[in-house]
């Protein structure tokens, strides 16, 4: 009993320490953002005169309004299409399982490990030949393709657990496959679909490589790509850079906090499944 209690106490202490290590960089970013613009504040130190206006300055310097709009458009282009295509293919490979579906699945499975840097050069020339360089399509179209492996593996893992009787019953009622998909399987897949949507949202928002290679104008990039440009421009003004970084990462935190319960458990389960 005593051993158990001591173990629990050590566990608590360790957990708190680990949480502190995770949180401190955020705190440092926040505190530094409050120092007078252009200074080099030493370490983590609450400023004598907190400059809350730094956030406003960073908002204007980064053109945050336009950035939000740009990222929003990219997310709207990527996420619904990826969800639709991924779910359809997941259904095809997990429920219909036509001849050859195993091979197709393996093909997608290989893409799961693909480093984006591996194909960035041909992507650049493909997008250039399509006349889409420096447009949001340059990020949207490749991202849909690049998100297919994960989306399909994720959705197939869900569809494969759905009993075949469900399909049979609906067929007896005269539903065709398309109706079966929309009226029965998609509603049942909502939990898997919504956590996939959150993941794809975050990955789009945070996409950096495609943004810096394919789009020069920071105002047509994703948030992460714009942050890269912001660092290049304001990298010497540490408080302003910190304020800008905070503004750019805050929406991801908000999304996470709103959906976190469902999200963390889904992701942990999904990672093991796939």
């Amino acid at each position, binding site marked *: 009993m005593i051993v158990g209690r001591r173990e629990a106490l050590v566990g*608590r202490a*360790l*957990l708190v320490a*680990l*949480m502190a*290590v*995770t949180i*401190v*960089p955020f705190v*440092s*970013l926040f505190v530094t953002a409050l120092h007078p613009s252009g200074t080099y504040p*030493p*370490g983590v130190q609450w400023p004598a005169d907190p400059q809350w206006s730094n956030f406003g300055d960073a908002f204007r310097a980064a053109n945050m309004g336009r950035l939000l709009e740009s990222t929003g458009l990219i997310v709207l282009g990527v996420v619904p299409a990826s969800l639709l*295509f991924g779910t*359809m*293919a997941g259904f*095809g*490979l997990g429920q*219909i399982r*036509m001849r050859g579906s195993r091979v*197709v699945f393996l*093909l997608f499975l290989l893409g799961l*490990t*693909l*480093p*984006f*840097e*591996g*194909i*960035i*050069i*041909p*992507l*650049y020339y*493909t997008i250039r030949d399509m006349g889409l360089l420096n447009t949001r399509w340059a990020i949207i*179209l490749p991202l*849909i*393709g*690049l998100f*297919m492996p994960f*989306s399909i593996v994720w959705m197939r893992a869900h569809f494969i657990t759905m009993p*075949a009787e469900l399909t*049979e019953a609906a067929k007896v009622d*005269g539903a065709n496959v398309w109706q079966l998909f929309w009226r029965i399987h998609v509603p049942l897949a909502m939990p898997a679909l919504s956590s996939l949507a959150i993941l794809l949202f*975050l990955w789009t*928002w*945070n996409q*950096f*490589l495609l943004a810096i290679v394919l789009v020069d104008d920071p105002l047509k990039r994703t*948030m992460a790509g714009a*942050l*890269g440009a912001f660092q290049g421009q304001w990298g010497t003004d540490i408080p302003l850079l910190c304020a800008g*970084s905070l503004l*750019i990462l805050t929406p991801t935190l908000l*999304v*996470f906090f709103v959906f*976190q319960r469902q999200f*963390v458990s889904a992701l*942990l389960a999904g990672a*093991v499944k796939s």
Partner: protein
Amino acid sequence: MPRPVEGTTTRPPGRVAAESSPAEKGRRVRRARRPAPALVGWLFVAPALVMYGVFVLRPIAVTLQYSLYDWDGAGPSTWVGLGNYAKIFTDPDLLGPILHAFQLIVFFSAVPVTLGLFVATTIRRIAQSRLAGIARTILFLPQVIPLVAAGIMWSWLLSSTGLVNQLLSAVGLGSLTRGWLGDFTTALPAVGLIGAWVLLGLCTLLLLAGMSKIDQTLYEAARLDGAGAVREFVSITLPSLRQEIAVCVTITVIAALSSFDIVYISTQGGPGNSTLVPGLQVYYLAFSERDIGTACALAMVLMTLVLATVLPIQWFNREDSR
């Protein structure tokens, strides 16, 4: 998972012929209008396959094709066969980044997985408490923010006036202080530290989730048999977590080998070339030095390395879990 017998979803092919039948009101006929399931299956997969083909599969093939040429991206190209690959494995400037990527595995994989195992084992008993609930949220934060933001945060923490040095001075180790990312000997480990921070929480949570599935009576039995904490860990925890450990190692190894964002933001590959990684080198070769052939050869090597590292882990895991 019982798989339905092949063919239960297959309609007799003959019925498809009735597709153009004018009498379509009856249920039987409506059923008959359905095209063969194989075709339907392919139609469902088609959009995904097209996007994947155009923006992933074809680019892989083109990378392979370009890697066999000497090309500046605009002028005429010259066939060089495997020359670009030979260059990568003989030129230390090109081989360096690959070695760096493997060194990063130590920080991106070994540190988070071992530390995560240690932490998860220690907090296993309080996994149901409120504190652990809060921890689940907090430890996940580094996974949610852009890696670019993580890079900016840590560049500042590791700078010569940053928190890391402040803490070192506070505990009397002031002689160690330096600009960690600007020093030839510490820059690569410092980049690795950033990656470890990003991945530690994820690994801990994954392992903890795996532990919650272990039958608690196993531990009680071990206690009764007089097993210590170490014995418990080796005989119960480790074997039960094989799958979760494999997942952690896979995710983190991919993150290490294909690291780009963090390095681009925190060091740009410097000082000198001391933190240059393959992903960043591909980017520089292609878009600054206009050496498309070599860049593509390196990209091929990178993709192959990731597969060659990840597949054995998966295979090993699968074989063992039977």
